[in-house]
């Protein structure tokens, strides 16, 4: 039980990362590959946050009454993930726009067919 308590977040985060990688490597539909990219992104963010977690920790924000910084979680991974989420959305949108252009050009989203057609 203590094993699960200790490693549940790592297992979940790397589960998401591996699922994302599997989708990217196996699927032929471009939209599904992009969905895999999004899952991978979520897994990485979850992993970074769980690295910085401290048992029973609170958010690293001081409020007037409580000035004790001992029980606060690590602020550095949170700051990284904060920007990574927004950038993830933008990169996802860029990938989707490229998918739209590919669909206009080839008339299909199947990666295998696109590779056969070349131009």
């Amino acid at each position: 039980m203590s094993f699960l308590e200790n490693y549940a977040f790592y297992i979940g985060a790397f589960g998401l990362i591996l699922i994302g990688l599997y989708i990217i490597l196996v699927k032929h539909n471009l939209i599904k590959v992009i969905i895999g990219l999004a899952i991978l992104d979520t897994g990485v963010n979850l992993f970074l946050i769980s690295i910085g977690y401290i048992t029973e920790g609170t958010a690293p924000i001081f409020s007037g009454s409580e000035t004790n910084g001992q029980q606060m979680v690590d602020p550095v991974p949170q700051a990284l993930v904060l920007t990574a989420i927004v950038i993830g959305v933008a990169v996802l949108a860029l990938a989707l726009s490229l998918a739209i252009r590919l669909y206009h050009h080839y008339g299909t989203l199947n990666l295998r067919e696109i590779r056969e057609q070349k131009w």
Partner: protein
Amino acid sequence: MRKIITILLLSIVAVGISLSLAKIPFGQPKTKVGTRYIDKGIEETGAVNIVTSVVVSYRGFDTLGEVTVLFIAATGLGAVLRIAKTKAAAIEPASFVLQTGCRVLFPLILVFGSYIFIHGHLTPGGGFQGGAIIASAFVLIYLGCREKRISEKMSTTLESLGGVIFVVVGLIGLAVGGYFLLNFLPKGQPYLLLSAGIIPVIYIAIGFKVGSELAGIIDNLIEESQ
């Protein structure tokens, strides 16, 4: 065949990762730099929210880089979708209830987003989150009042203004005290809105930038889908 090879490869990766992760304890403080930021953060930057002080003050230069990445992604999307844009067909307007609901909610969401990024140094939130909330207000407008569009000129102006304010504030720090993004304004008393020197200024600039960029991305994608 391909699936089996992939699963084999991924299981090798998984074994490697789990062997190395087993040595990383969960739930214990790991970095010295994090504890230092918590101990000295208020004193050095004046911001009560330590995450904000890390994002804008200690690692402000990284944040400038990340904002640039966001800008490049948004510009790239515009450039990719701009080629051979077709004329938009006539759009069927949404129902009256939907339109009125959007008009009522739109300013409220804008105010909430501004609140989030103005209070970034005091409460959970900041420029990135507030900007995302403001962009969600534009999603609502696009879905509800479908004939409405934000003017491209205004969104570009706000975006550039945000970037320019960020860089100029950093350069003033360079001119005044010798390094980029120096906190040259008085830090004031912690827990007050007007505290933490340049942190609120930069976070408001980031809020405008992120909000207009995400709204621009949504605008481009919606135009493409019509």
